[in-house]
């Protein structure tokens, strides 16, 4: 325990930094979570079931889509397939974050992957890019995000009818703001412009042509393809 004692202060600052970083994200998460809980309750899910789903699935967009599709009795296969498809972007996210998680103790990695969601993943990627991503930093974000998500979705299910559409008050733009702020950390000059434009245009077009959340995966793949092409001149000739 001696080496970790020496680092106790460092872990404390990591925890504080993670809590500070995740706070603006919660401004967007809380209204979204309340609305999800309310929608799920209207579909006949009990607050207990909403809380269980949030704790076990822990994926906002997939849960939202599931709530829209929920029937009595629940269509188990269709709901599972929907969750699988909507969360396909996790595969790409997992590939990107893998080098950072590889530095965590082995038993912590399955749990670290369990709490990987869009916002804390992006915050973690930025942290890893600027230096080292510690388990204290990542774990703090994960625990806060998970606890807030479970709690506020359950509250939303209890309050149900009293919850209004967050878009009416601009709260949906909290996510846009968070993602734009995170993007600043990923700017690498003019080549980024090509990658971002490819991702944006593809996502916009696919979102209009294809039902469902495919536009995220399509946009991400287009960005990856653009990065591949832009970098080819820099790669050594075979």
């Amino acid at each position, binding site marked *: 325990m001696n080496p970790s004692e020496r680092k106790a202060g460092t872990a404390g600052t990591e925890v504080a930094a993670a809590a500070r970083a995740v706070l603006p994200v919660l401004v967007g998460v809380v209204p979204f979570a309340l609305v999800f809980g309310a929608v799920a309750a209207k579909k006949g899910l009990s607050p207990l079931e909403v809380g269980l789903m949030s704790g076990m699935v822990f994926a906002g967009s997939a849960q939202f889509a599931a709530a829209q599709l929920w029937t009595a009795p629940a269509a188990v296969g269709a709901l599972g397939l929907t969750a699988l498809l909507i969360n396909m972007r996790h595969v790409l996210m997992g590939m990107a974050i893998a080098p950072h998680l590889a530095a965590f103790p082995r038993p912590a990695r399955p749990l670290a992957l369990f709490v990987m969601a869009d916002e804390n993943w992006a915050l973690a990627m930025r942290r890893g890019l600027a230096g080292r991503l510690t388990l204290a930093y990542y774990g703090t974000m994960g625990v806060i995000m998970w606890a807030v998500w479970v709690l506020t979705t359950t509250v939303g299910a209890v309050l149900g009818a009293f919850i209004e559409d967050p878009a009416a008050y601009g709260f949906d733009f909290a996510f846009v703001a968070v993602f734009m702020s995170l993007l600043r950390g990923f700017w690498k000059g003019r080549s980024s412009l090509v990658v971002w434009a490819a991702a944006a245009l593809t996502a916009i077009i696919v979102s209009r042509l294809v039902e469902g959340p495919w536009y995220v995966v399509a946009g991400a793949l287009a960005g990856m393809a653009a990065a591949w092409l*832009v970098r080819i001149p820099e790669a050594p000739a075979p």
Partner: protein
Amino acid sequence: MSLDPVNLAAIVVMAAATYLTRITGYWLAGRIALTGPARAAVDAIPASVLVAVIAPQIAGGGAAGAAAAILTALAAWRGPMVLAVAVGIASAALFRNLLG
């Protein structure tokens, strides 16, 4: 506080499917060595995912969405995230009332 067995089954299946997507990328990354353009493509994932999530939302928001997006982008580029979130919420609410 009721717990329907079919609902519980659906929740468990959703949880398993979602966890599968979370571990697959990590599992793949440990088995493929990435160099050159493939490395560049994987490095481009974070920004590409972020852009792909918000671009359709902004594009579908009309004049109010575009105006709010420009102000939010300026705040996000120059200031801390908290400021960007405040500007984002306030400008979206304002422009939707004025233009929407």
